[in-house]
Protein backbone atom coordinates (compact mmCIF):
# COMPACT_ATOMS: atom_id res chain seq x y z
CA UNK A 1 0.00 0.00 0.00
CA UNK A 2 1.32 3.39 -0.94
CA UNK A 3 1.19 6.20 1.59
CA UNK A 4 2.39 9.01 -0.63
CA UNK A 5 2.45 9.44 -4.40
CA UNK A 6 4.76 11.48 -6.63
CA UNK A 7 1.93 13.96 -7.16
CA UNK A 8 1.57 14.31 -3.37
CA UNK A 9 5.31 14.95 -3.15
CA UNK A 10 5.17 17.65 -5.82
CA UNK A 11 2.25 19.30 -4.02
CA UNK A 12 3.97 19.16 -0.61
CA UNK A 13 7.21 20.49 -2.11
CA UNK A 14 5.26 23.49 -3.39
CA UNK A 15 3.82 24.10 0.09
CA UNK A 16 7.28 23.77 1.64
CA UNK A 17 8.97 26.03 -0.92
CA UNK A 18 11.37 23.27 -1.92
CA UNK A 19 12.11 21.92 -5.38
CA UNK A 20 13.24 18.49 -6.54
CA UNK A 21 14.25 17.26 -10.00
CA UNK A 22 12.75 14.02 -11.36
CA UNK A 23 15.38 11.70 -9.89
CA UNK A 24 15.18 13.42 -6.50
CA UNK A 25 11.38 13.25 -6.60
CA UNK A 26 11.56 9.48 -7.17
CA UNK A 27 14.02 9.02 -4.33
CA UNK A 28 12.21 11.16 -1.81
CA UNK A 29 8.83 9.65 -2.71
CA UNK A 30 10.09 6.18 -1.85
CA UNK A 31 11.83 7.40 1.36
CA UNK A 32 8.76 9.29 2.55
CA UNK A 33 6.53 6.35 1.66
CA UNK A 34 8.58 4.08 3.91
CA UNK A 35 8.65 6.56 6.78
CA UNK A 36 4.95 7.40 6.56
CA UNK A 37 4.19 3.67 6.32
CA UNK A 38 5.97 3.19 9.63
CA UNK A 39 4.47 6.14 11.52
CA UNK A 40 0.97 5.31 10.26
CA UNK A 41 1.01 2.63 13.02
CA UNK A 42 -0.52 5.26 15.32
CA UNK A 43 -3.82 4.91 13.46
CA UNK A 44 -4.28 1.62 15.38
CA UNK A 45 -4.23 3.34 18.77
CA UNK A 46 -7.54 3.97 20.49
CA UNK A 47 -7.65 7.71 21.23
CA UNK A 48 -11.40 8.10 21.41
CA UNK A 49 -11.44 9.79 24.80
CA UNK A 50 -8.07 11.46 24.62
CA UNK A 51 -7.38 15.15 24.11
CA UNK A 52 -4.43 16.18 21.94
CA UNK A 53 -1.33 17.60 23.66
CA UNK A 54 0.41 20.39 21.81
CA UNK A 55 2.65 21.36 24.68
CA UNK A 56 3.69 19.75 27.97
CA UNK A 57 3.58 22.93 30.05
CA UNK A 58 0.21 24.23 31.22
CA UNK A 59 0.78 27.77 30.06
CA UNK A 60 -1.19 30.16 27.94
CA UNK A 61 -0.92 33.76 26.80
CA UNK A 62 2.51 34.50 28.19
CA UNK A 63 2.66 38.25 27.65
CA UNK A 64 4.93 41.00 28.87
CA UNK A 65 3.90 44.49 29.86
CA UNK A 66 3.04 46.62 26.83
CA UNK A 67 5.93 48.96 27.51
CA UNK A 68 8.45 50.25 24.98
CA UNK A 69 11.77 48.39 25.19
CA UNK A 70 15.04 48.50 23.31
CA UNK A 71 15.15 46.38 20.22
CA UNK A 72 17.63 45.65 17.44
CA UNK A 73 18.93 48.67 15.57
CA UNK A 74 18.35 48.77 11.82
CA UNK A 75 22.07 48.13 11.29
CA UNK A 76 22.02 45.05 13.49
CA UNK A 77 18.91 43.77 11.76
CA UNK A 78 20.54 44.18 8.34
CA UNK A 79 23.96 42.86 9.37
CA UNK A 80 23.41 39.41 7.83
CA UNK A 81 21.45 40.60 4.81
CA UNK A 82 22.52 38.95 1.52
CA UNK A 83 21.56 42.21 -0.19
CA UNK A 84 20.29 45.47 1.18
CA UNK A 85 19.19 48.81 -0.18
CA UNK A 86 17.99 51.97 1.55
CA UNK A 87 17.82 50.22 4.91
CA UNK A 88 15.74 47.34 3.57
CA UNK A 89 16.31 43.75 2.44
CA UNK A 90 16.63 43.80 -1.35
CA UNK A 91 14.95 40.84 -3.07
CA UNK A 92 13.97 39.88 -6.64
CA UNK A 93 10.55 40.95 -7.89
CA UNK A 94 7.47 39.00 -6.93
CA UNK A 95 6.26 36.91 -9.86
Amino acid at each position, binding site marked *: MSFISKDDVRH*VAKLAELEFDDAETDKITSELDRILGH*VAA*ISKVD*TSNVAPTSH*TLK*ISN*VFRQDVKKESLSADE*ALSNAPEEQDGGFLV*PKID
Partner: protein
Amino acid sequence: MELPLNFYPAHKLNKMLRQKQVSASEIVDAVICAIDKAEARMHAYLRVESKEMAQAAAGFDSKSDALAKNGSISDFCAIPIAIKDNICTKGITTTCASKILSNYIPVYDATVIKRLKAAGYILSGKANMDEFAMGSSNENSYFGPVKNPWDLERVPGGSSGGPAASVAAGTAICSLGSDTGGSIRQPASLCGVVGLKPTYGLVSRYGLIAFASSLDQIGPFTRDVEDSARLLNVICGWDENDSTSIGSAEAGSQDYTKYLGCSIKGLKIGVPKELMVKEVDGEVRQKVNEALALAESAGAIVEEISLPSLEYALSVYYIIAPSEASSNLSRFDGVRYGYRNRDAATLRQMYKKSRAQGFGPEVKRRIMIGTYSLSAGYYDAYYEKAQRVRTLIINDFNNAFKKYDVLISPTSPSTAFRIGEKAGDPLKMYMSDICTIPVNLAGIPAISIPAGLSSEGLPVGLQIIADTLREDNIFRMAHALEEAIGFDSHPMYLYK
Protein backbone atom coordinates in the same frame (compact mmCIF):
# COMPACT_ATOMS: atom_id res chain seq x y z
CA MET B 1 49.26 7.12 33.80
CA GLU B 2 48.73 10.55 35.30
CA LEU B 3 45.79 12.27 33.67
CA PRO B 4 46.56 15.62 32.06
CA LEU B 5 44.61 18.73 33.16
CA ASN B 6 42.28 18.70 30.15
CA PHE B 7 40.74 15.45 31.46
CA TYR B 8 39.93 16.84 34.90
CA PRO B 9 36.32 17.71 35.74
CA ALA B 10 35.55 21.41 36.17
CA HIS B 11 34.92 21.10 39.91
CA LYS B 12 38.45 19.79 40.44
CA LEU B 13 39.99 22.52 38.24
CA ASN B 14 37.95 25.14 40.08
CA LYS B 15 39.36 24.00 43.44
CA MET B 16 42.90 24.07 42.03
CA LEU B 17 42.38 27.56 40.57
CA ARG B 18 41.10 28.87 43.89
CA GLN B 19 44.02 27.31 45.75
CA LYS B 20 46.45 28.67 43.13
CA GLN B 21 47.68 25.14 42.34
CA VAL B 22 47.10 25.80 38.68
CA SER B 23 46.69 28.83 36.43
CA ALA B 24 43.98 29.36 33.81
CA SER B 25 46.72 29.48 31.17
CA GLU B 26 47.90 26.00 32.17
CA ILE B 27 44.35 24.66 31.79
CA VAL B 28 43.87 26.36 28.43
CA ASP B 29 47.32 25.19 27.25
CA ALA B 30 46.38 21.59 28.04
CA VAL B 31 43.11 21.92 26.09
CA ILE B 32 44.80 23.60 23.11
CA CYS B 33 47.52 20.93 23.12
CA ALA B 34 44.84 18.23 22.99
CA ILE B 35 43.05 20.05 20.17
CA ASP B 36 46.31 20.28 18.21
CA LYS B 37 46.92 16.56 18.60
CA ALA B 38 43.44 15.07 18.17
CA GLU B 39 40.95 17.52 16.68
CA ALA B 40 41.97 17.07 13.03
CA ARG B 41 41.13 13.38 13.30
CA MET B 42 37.82 13.94 15.13
CA HIS B 43 36.34 17.12 13.62
CA ALA B 44 34.33 17.81 16.78
CA TYR B 45 34.68 21.55 16.21
CA LEU B 46 33.49 23.80 13.39
CA ARG B 47 35.42 26.67 14.89
CA VAL B 48 38.16 26.67 17.55
CA GLU B 49 38.84 29.86 19.51
CA SER B 50 42.52 29.18 20.35
CA LYS B 51 43.74 32.77 20.42
CA GLU B 52 40.71 33.99 22.34
CA MET B 53 41.05 31.14 24.87
CA ALA B 54 44.68 32.06 25.53
CA GLN B 55 43.79 35.76 25.87
CA ALA B 56 40.92 35.04 28.23
CA ALA B 57 43.11 32.79 30.36
CA ALA B 58 45.85 35.42 30.55
CA GLY B 59 43.21 37.98 31.51
CA PHE B 60 41.93 35.75 34.30
CA ASP B 61 45.45 35.00 35.58
CA SER B 62 46.32 38.70 35.78
CA LYS B 63 43.25 39.32 37.97
CA SER B 64 43.21 36.02 39.86
CA ASP B 65 44.57 37.39 43.13
CA ALA B 66 41.87 40.04 43.26
CA LEU B 67 39.21 37.52 42.22
CA ALA B 68 40.37 35.04 44.87
CA LYS B 69 40.30 37.77 47.54
CA ASN B 70 36.69 38.72 46.95
CA GLY B 71 35.65 35.10 46.51
CA SER B 72 34.48 35.42 42.94
CA ILE B 73 36.15 32.47 41.25
CA SER B 74 32.83 30.82 40.52
CA ASP B 75 32.39 27.21 39.43
CA PHE B 76 33.07 27.69 35.72
CA CYS B 77 35.38 30.69 35.87
CA ALA B 78 38.18 30.22 33.30
CA ILE B 79 36.86 26.80 32.28
CA PRO B 80 37.01 26.07 28.50
CA ILE B 81 33.53 25.03 27.35
CA ALA B 82 32.45 24.03 23.80
CA ILE B 83 29.10 25.26 22.52
CA LYS B 84 26.95 23.36 19.99
CA ASP B 85 26.71 25.40 16.82
CA ASN B 86 22.92 25.90 17.04
CA ILE B 87 23.31 28.13 20.09
CA CYS B 88 23.73 31.81 19.21
CA THR B 89 27.03 33.39 20.20
CA LYS B 90 27.10 37.10 19.45
CA GLY B 91 29.64 38.04 16.81
CA ILE B 92 30.72 34.42 16.29
CA THR B 93 29.38 32.36 13.39
CA THR B 94 26.53 30.04 14.32
CA THR B 95 25.84 27.71 11.43
CA CYS B 96 23.66 24.81 12.70
CA ALA B 97 26.12 22.81 10.54
CA SER B 98 24.13 23.88 7.50
CA LYS B 99 25.08 25.52 4.21
CA ILE B 100 22.02 27.75 4.61
CA LEU B 101 23.58 29.41 7.70
CA SER B 102 27.27 28.94 6.94
CA ASN B 103 27.91 32.69 7.10
CA TYR B 104 25.37 33.64 9.80
CA ILE B 105 26.74 35.83 12.60
CA PRO B 106 24.22 36.32 15.42
CA VAL B 107 23.69 39.83 16.74
CA TYR B 108 22.83 38.54 20.19
CA ASP B 109 23.90 35.92 22.72
CA ALA B 110 21.62 33.07 23.72
CA THR B 111 20.48 33.39 27.34
CA VAL B 112 22.61 30.37 28.34
CA ILE B 113 25.65 32.13 26.84
CA LYS B 114 24.87 35.32 28.77
CA ARG B 115 24.73 33.25 31.95
CA LEU B 116 27.99 31.43 31.16
CA LYS B 117 29.68 34.76 30.39
CA ALA B 118 28.52 36.16 33.74
CA ALA B 119 30.03 33.03 35.30
CA GLY B 120 33.38 33.78 33.64
CA TYR B 121 33.56 30.81 31.25
CA ILE B 122 35.97 30.58 28.33
CA LEU B 123 34.52 29.65 24.91
CA SER B 124 36.69 26.87 23.46
CA GLY B 125 34.81 26.88 20.17
CA LYS B 126 31.60 26.03 18.30
CA ALA B 127 30.93 22.35 18.16
CA ASN B 128 29.97 20.32 15.10
CA MET B 129 26.51 18.73 14.97
CA ASP B 130 23.95 17.13 12.67
CA GLU B 131 22.42 19.82 10.45
CA PHE B 132 19.67 21.69 12.34
CA ALA B 133 19.96 19.06 15.09
CA MET B 134 18.40 16.42 12.84
CA GLY B 135 20.30 13.18 13.15
CA SER B 136 21.66 10.51 15.46
CA SER B 137 25.21 10.12 14.19
CA ASN B 138 26.62 13.56 13.28
CA GLU B 139 26.90 12.29 9.68
CA ASN B 140 24.46 14.98 8.53
CA SER B 141 26.78 17.96 9.03
CA TYR B 142 27.30 20.09 5.91
CA PHE B 143 30.90 20.48 7.09
CA GLY B 144 31.63 16.76 7.44
CA PRO B 145 31.09 14.14 10.14
CA VAL B 146 32.47 13.93 13.66
CA LYS B 147 34.43 10.78 14.54
CA ASN B 148 34.01 8.99 17.85
CA PRO B 149 37.20 9.50 19.90
CA TRP B 150 36.97 5.90 21.16
CA ASP B 151 37.16 4.55 17.58
CA LEU B 152 37.60 7.01 14.74
CA GLU B 153 35.75 4.74 12.27
CA ARG B 154 32.62 5.03 14.35
CA VAL B 155 30.04 7.72 14.94
CA PRO B 156 29.93 9.76 18.14
CA GLY B 157 26.13 9.82 18.02
CA GLY B 158 24.00 12.84 17.27
CA SER B 159 22.89 15.40 16.87
CA SER B 160 25.29 16.81 19.51
CA GLY B 161 28.21 14.68 18.25
CA GLY B 162 30.73 17.52 18.54
CA PRO B 163 29.88 18.50 22.13
CA ALA B 164 30.00 14.85 23.26
CA ALA B 165 33.22 13.97 21.42
CA SER B 166 35.10 17.07 22.64
CA VAL B 167 34.39 16.31 26.30
CA ALA B 168 35.23 12.61 25.84
CA ALA B 169 38.51 13.45 24.10
CA GLY B 170 39.58 16.19 26.50
CA THR B 171 39.39 18.91 23.85
CA ALA B 172 36.86 20.71 26.07
CA ILE B 173 36.25 20.45 29.82
CA CYS B 174 32.48 20.48 29.34
CA SER B 175 30.06 21.51 26.62
CA LEU B 176 26.48 22.52 25.92
CA GLY B 177 24.32 20.62 23.49
CA SER B 178 20.62 20.41 22.68
CA ASP B 179 18.20 17.49 22.94
CA THR B 180 14.96 17.13 20.99
CA GLY B 181 14.66 13.32 20.72
CA GLY B 182 17.86 12.23 22.45
CA SER B 183 20.49 14.48 20.91
CA ILE B 184 22.35 14.99 24.19
CA ARG B 185 21.80 11.62 25.83
CA GLN B 186 22.52 9.31 22.89
CA PRO B 187 25.90 10.89 21.96
CA ALA B 188 26.78 11.02 25.69
CA SER B 189 26.12 7.28 25.77
CA LEU B 190 28.19 6.55 22.65
CA CYS B 191 31.07 8.74 23.87
CA GLY B 192 31.19 7.67 27.52
CA VAL B 193 30.35 11.02 29.11
CA VAL B 194 27.50 12.43 31.20
CA GLY B 195 24.71 14.13 29.24
CA LEU B 196 21.59 15.71 30.78
CA LYS B 197 18.32 16.78 29.19
CA PRO B 198 16.63 19.00 31.79
CA THR B 199 12.86 19.30 32.28
CA TYR B 200 11.33 21.14 29.31
CA GLY B 201 11.17 24.82 30.24
CA LEU B 202 13.90 24.68 32.90
CA VAL B 203 16.61 26.05 30.61
CA SER B 204 15.86 29.00 28.36
CA ARG B 205 15.60 28.30 24.62
CA TYR B 206 16.21 31.95 23.74
CA GLY B 207 19.06 31.87 21.26
CA LEU B 208 18.74 28.14 20.54
CA ILE B 209 17.97 27.96 16.84
CA ALA B 210 14.71 26.05 16.95
CA PHE B 211 14.13 22.57 15.56
CA ALA B 212 10.95 21.43 17.39
CA SER B 213 9.75 24.03 19.83
CA SER B 214 7.75 21.78 22.15
CA LEU B 215 10.63 19.28 22.46
CA ASP B 216 13.96 21.19 22.29
CA GLN B 217 16.04 21.69 25.44
CA ILE B 218 19.63 22.84 25.97
CA GLY B 219 21.68 20.73 28.39
CA PRO B 220 25.22 20.04 29.65
CA PHE B 221 27.82 17.44 28.66
CA THR B 222 30.28 16.85 31.48
CA ARG B 223 32.88 14.38 32.70
CA ASP B 224 30.93 13.55 35.83
CA VAL B 225 27.57 14.02 37.54
CA GLU B 226 28.86 16.72 39.92
CA ASP B 227 29.85 18.94 36.98
CA SER B 228 26.43 18.30 35.43
CA ALA B 229 24.65 19.60 38.56
CA ARG B 230 26.98 22.63 38.73
CA LEU B 231 26.54 23.51 35.06
CA LEU B 232 22.78 23.13 35.31
CA ASN B 233 22.86 25.59 38.24
CA VAL B 234 24.41 28.19 35.92
CA ILE B 235 22.20 27.78 32.85
CA CYS B 236 18.78 27.02 34.36
CA GLY B 237 16.12 29.43 35.47
CA TRP B 238 13.27 31.58 34.25
CA ASP B 239 13.96 33.85 31.29
CA GLU B 240 11.64 36.68 30.21
CA ASN B 241 12.80 36.15 26.63
CA ASP B 242 11.49 32.56 26.49
CA SER B 243 7.73 32.37 26.79
CA THR B 244 7.98 28.63 27.48
CA SER B 245 10.33 29.18 30.40
CA ILE B 246 9.27 27.75 33.78
CA GLY B 247 9.25 29.87 36.90
CA SER B 248 9.27 33.59 37.45
CA ALA B 249 11.54 36.51 38.11
CA GLU B 250 10.79 36.11 41.81
CA ALA B 251 11.79 32.42 42.01
CA GLY B 252 15.16 31.96 43.71
CA SER B 253 18.13 30.16 42.19
CA GLN B 254 18.51 26.42 42.46
CA ASP B 255 21.42 24.38 43.76
CA TYR B 256 21.36 20.87 42.39
CA THR B 257 24.62 19.90 44.08
CA LYS B 258 22.72 19.31 47.33
CA TYR B 259 21.41 16.06 45.84
CA LEU B 260 24.87 14.61 45.33
CA GLY B 261 26.16 12.10 47.86
CA CYS B 262 22.66 11.14 49.02
CA SER B 263 21.72 7.55 49.78
CA ILE B 264 19.45 5.78 47.29
CA LYS B 265 18.16 3.38 49.93
CA GLY B 266 14.43 2.89 49.51
CA LEU B 267 14.28 4.70 46.16
CA LYS B 268 12.01 2.86 43.74
CA ILE B 269 13.33 2.21 40.25
CA GLY B 270 10.99 1.21 37.43
CA VAL B 271 12.46 -0.53 34.37
CA PRO B 272 10.07 -0.08 31.42
CA LYS B 273 10.02 -3.26 29.38
CA GLU B 274 9.13 -1.26 26.28
CA LEU B 275 12.61 0.33 26.46
CA MET B 276 14.38 -3.01 26.87
CA VAL B 277 13.30 -3.90 23.34
CA LYS B 278 14.71 -6.79 21.33
CA GLU B 279 16.85 -4.29 19.40
CA VAL B 280 18.87 -3.63 22.57
CA ASP B 281 22.29 -5.22 22.16
CA GLY B 282 23.17 -8.06 24.55
CA GLU B 283 26.20 -6.31 26.07
CA VAL B 284 24.25 -3.07 26.57
CA ARG B 285 21.50 -5.00 28.33
CA GLN B 286 24.11 -6.73 30.50
CA LYS B 287 25.79 -3.48 31.61
CA VAL B 288 22.41 -1.92 32.46
CA ASN B 289 21.44 -5.00 34.47
CA GLU B 290 24.78 -4.91 36.33
CA ALA B 291 24.10 -1.28 37.28
CA LEU B 292 20.59 -2.19 38.46
CA ALA B 293 22.14 -4.93 40.65
CA LEU B 294 24.48 -2.31 42.15
CA ALA B 295 21.44 -0.11 42.83
CA GLU B 296 19.76 -2.98 44.63
CA SER B 297 22.81 -3.63 46.80
CA ALA B 298 22.67 0.04 47.78
CA GLY B 299 19.11 -0.49 48.97
CA ALA B 300 17.09 0.69 45.98
CA ILE B 301 14.08 -1.33 44.88
CA VAL B 302 14.06 -2.41 41.23
CA GLU B 303 10.90 -3.55 39.42
CA GLU B 304 10.04 -4.20 35.79
CA ILE B 305 7.07 -2.12 34.62
CA SER B 306 5.10 -1.55 31.46
CA LEU B 307 4.31 1.73 29.75
CA PRO B 308 2.34 0.37 26.78
CA SER B 309 2.03 3.57 24.75
CA LEU B 310 5.83 3.87 24.53
CA GLU B 311 5.61 1.39 21.66
CA TYR B 312 4.25 4.26 19.54
CA ALA B 313 6.65 6.97 20.75
CA LEU B 314 8.94 6.77 17.72
CA SER B 315 6.01 7.19 15.32
CA VAL B 316 4.54 10.05 17.34
CA TYR B 317 7.91 11.81 17.40
CA TYR B 318 8.54 11.39 13.68
CA ILE B 319 5.27 13.17 12.99
CA ILE B 320 5.37 15.90 15.65
CA ALA B 321 9.04 16.85 15.42
CA PRO B 322 9.11 17.20 11.61
CA SER B 323 5.80 19.12 11.74
CA GLU B 324 7.19 21.64 14.19
CA ALA B 325 10.45 21.75 12.21
CA SER B 326 8.64 22.48 8.95
CA SER B 327 7.22 25.57 10.59
CA ASN B 328 10.45 26.63 12.34
CA LEU B 329 12.59 26.23 9.23
CA SER B 330 10.26 28.25 7.00
CA ARG B 331 12.18 31.36 8.09
CA PHE B 332 15.19 30.22 6.04
CA ASP B 333 14.31 31.73 2.69
CA GLY B 334 17.37 33.73 1.64
CA VAL B 335 15.77 37.09 2.50
CA ARG B 336 17.25 38.33 5.77
CA TYR B 337 20.22 36.04 6.48
CA GLY B 338 22.04 32.97 5.27
CA TYR B 339 22.47 31.46 1.85
CA ARG B 340 20.68 33.09 -1.07
CA ASN B 341 20.54 31.66 -4.57
CA ARG B 342 21.60 34.38 -7.02
CA ASP B 343 20.12 32.98 -10.25
CA ALA B 344 16.48 33.42 -9.29
CA ALA B 345 14.55 35.91 -11.38
CA THR B 346 11.60 36.07 -9.00
CA LEU B 347 11.04 36.03 -5.25
CA ARG B 348 9.39 32.60 -5.14
CA GLN B 349 12.16 31.13 -7.28
CA MET B 350 14.63 32.59 -4.79
CA TYR B 351 12.84 30.93 -1.87
CA LYS B 352 12.73 27.53 -3.60
CA LYS B 353 16.27 27.54 -4.93
CA SER B 354 17.85 28.93 -1.75
CA ARG B 355 16.12 26.28 0.32
CA ALA B 356 16.70 23.42 -2.14
CA GLN B 357 20.40 24.30 -2.36
CA GLY B 358 20.90 25.35 1.25
CA PHE B 359 19.34 22.42 3.11
CA GLY B 360 20.79 18.90 3.31
CA PRO B 361 18.80 15.74 2.45
CA GLU B 362 17.76 14.78 5.99
CA VAL B 363 16.50 18.29 6.70
CA LYS B 364 14.47 18.25 3.47
CA ARG B 365 13.03 14.82 4.31
CA ARG B 366 11.81 16.09 7.67
CA ILE B 367 10.41 19.33 6.27
CA MET B 368 8.49 17.23 3.73
CA ILE B 369 7.12 14.80 6.35
CA GLY B 370 6.11 17.71 8.55
CA THR B 371 4.49 19.73 5.78
CA TYR B 372 2.57 16.65 4.64
CA SER B 373 1.39 15.84 8.19
CA LEU B 374 0.11 19.38 8.66
CA SER B 375 -1.49 19.75 5.25
CA ALA B 376 -5.22 19.85 4.63
CA GLY B 377 -6.62 16.35 4.38
CA TYR B 378 -3.82 14.76 6.41
CA TYR B 379 -3.72 16.95 9.53
CA ASP B 380 -6.26 14.86 11.48
CA ALA B 381 -4.85 11.46 10.60
CA TYR B 382 -1.23 12.38 11.24
CA TYR B 383 -0.53 15.49 13.31
CA GLU B 384 -3.64 15.62 15.47
CA LYS B 385 -3.63 11.84 15.95
CA ALA B 386 0.02 11.99 17.01
CA GLN B 387 -0.84 14.70 19.54
CA ARG B 388 -3.48 12.42 21.05
CA VAL B 389 -1.06 9.50 21.32
CA ARG B 390 1.39 11.97 22.90
CA THR B 391 -1.18 12.46 25.68
CA LEU B 392 -1.27 8.69 26.26
CA ILE B 393 2.53 8.64 26.56
CA ILE B 394 2.43 11.52 29.07
CA ASN B 395 -0.27 9.68 31.04
CA ASP B 396 1.81 6.49 31.13
CA PHE B 397 4.76 8.40 32.59
CA ASN B 398 2.52 10.20 35.11
CA ASN B 399 1.16 6.88 36.31
CA ALA B 400 4.63 5.36 36.55
CA PHE B 401 5.90 8.27 38.65
CA LYS B 402 3.08 7.82 41.15
CA LYS B 403 4.80 4.60 42.19
CA TYR B 404 8.46 5.04 41.15
CA ASP B 405 11.07 7.69 41.86
CA VAL B 406 13.05 7.09 38.67
CA LEU B 407 12.88 4.91 35.58
CA ILE B 408 16.04 3.31 34.21
CA SER B 409 16.78 2.04 30.71
CA PRO B 410 19.64 1.78 28.25
CA THR B 411 20.25 5.18 26.62
CA SER B 412 20.99 3.70 23.21
CA PRO B 413 20.15 0.20 21.95
CA SER B 414 23.73 -0.23 20.78
CA THR B 415 27.25 1.06 21.24
CA ALA B 416 28.74 3.35 18.59
CA PHE B 417 28.01 2.03 15.10
CA ARG B 418 30.30 2.46 12.11
CA ILE B 419 30.27 5.58 9.96
CA GLY B 420 28.05 4.85 6.95
CA GLU B 421 26.39 1.83 8.57
CA LYS B 422 22.94 3.42 9.03
CA ALA B 423 23.29 6.55 6.92
CA GLY B 424 21.55 5.05 3.87
CA ASP B 425 18.43 4.00 5.79
CA PRO B 426 16.56 6.84 7.54
CA LEU B 427 14.23 4.52 9.45
CA LYS B 428 17.14 2.44 10.78
CA MET B 429 18.82 5.67 11.91
CA TYR B 430 15.62 6.84 13.62
CA MET B 431 15.56 3.62 15.68
CA SER B 432 18.78 4.78 17.42
CA ASP B 433 16.63 7.10 19.52
CA ILE B 434 14.02 4.56 20.56
CA CYS B 435 14.96 4.78 24.27
CA THR B 436 15.38 8.53 24.42
CA ILE B 437 12.45 9.89 22.37
CA PRO B 438 9.60 9.17 24.84
CA VAL B 439 11.24 11.49 27.38
CA ASN B 440 11.06 14.56 25.13
CA LEU B 441 7.41 13.90 24.27
CA ALA B 442 6.59 14.05 27.99
CA GLY B 443 8.85 17.05 28.69
CA ILE B 444 10.47 15.21 31.62
CA PRO B 445 14.18 15.20 32.56
CA ALA B 446 16.66 12.39 31.87
CA ILE B 447 20.40 11.86 32.13
CA SER B 448 22.81 9.41 30.50
CA ILE B 449 25.79 8.22 32.52
CA PRO B 450 28.55 5.81 31.46
CA ALA B 451 27.77 2.24 32.56
CA GLY B 452 31.01 0.69 31.35
CA LEU B 453 32.78 -0.40 28.17
CA SER B 454 31.73 -3.20 25.82
CA SER B 455 34.05 -6.08 24.94
CA GLU B 456 35.08 -3.94 21.91
CA GLY B 457 36.07 -1.10 24.25
CA LEU B 458 33.08 1.08 23.34
CA PRO B 459 31.11 3.05 25.95
CA VAL B 460 27.68 1.88 27.09
CA GLY B 461 25.24 4.45 28.50
CA LEU B 462 22.56 4.12 31.14
CA GLN B 463 19.53 6.44 31.16
CA ILE B 464 17.85 7.67 34.35
CA ILE B 465 14.46 9.33 33.87
CA ALA B 466 12.52 11.33 36.47
CA ASP B 467 9.24 13.20 36.73
CA THR B 468 8.79 16.86 35.71
CA LEU B 469 11.14 19.13 37.70
CA ARG B 470 12.48 16.15 39.68
CA GLU B 471 16.13 16.71 38.76
CA ASP B 472 16.75 16.04 42.45
CA ASN B 473 15.98 12.35 41.87
CA ILE B 474 18.05 12.36 38.70
CA PHE B 475 21.13 13.61 40.54
CA ARG B 476 20.57 11.41 43.61
CA MET B 477 20.44 8.26 41.50
CA ALA B 478 23.03 9.30 38.91
CA HIS B 479 25.64 10.26 41.50
CA ALA B 480 25.16 7.10 43.54
CA LEU B 481 25.34 4.86 40.46
CA GLU B 482 28.32 6.74 39.05
CA GLU B 483 30.17 6.07 42.30
CA ALA B 484 29.16 2.40 42.36
CA ILE B 485 30.03 1.81 38.68
CA GLY B 486 33.40 3.56 38.99
CA PHE B 487 33.83 4.30 35.26
CA ASP B 488 37.19 5.98 34.82
CA SER B 489 38.30 5.36 31.24
CA HIS B 490 39.45 7.86 28.64
CA PRO B 491 40.49 7.43 24.99
CA MET B 492 44.12 8.16 25.85
CA TYR B 493 45.40 6.32 22.76
CA LEU B 494 44.68 9.54 20.85
CA TYR B 495 47.61 11.16 22.61
CA LYS B 496 50.22 8.39 22.44
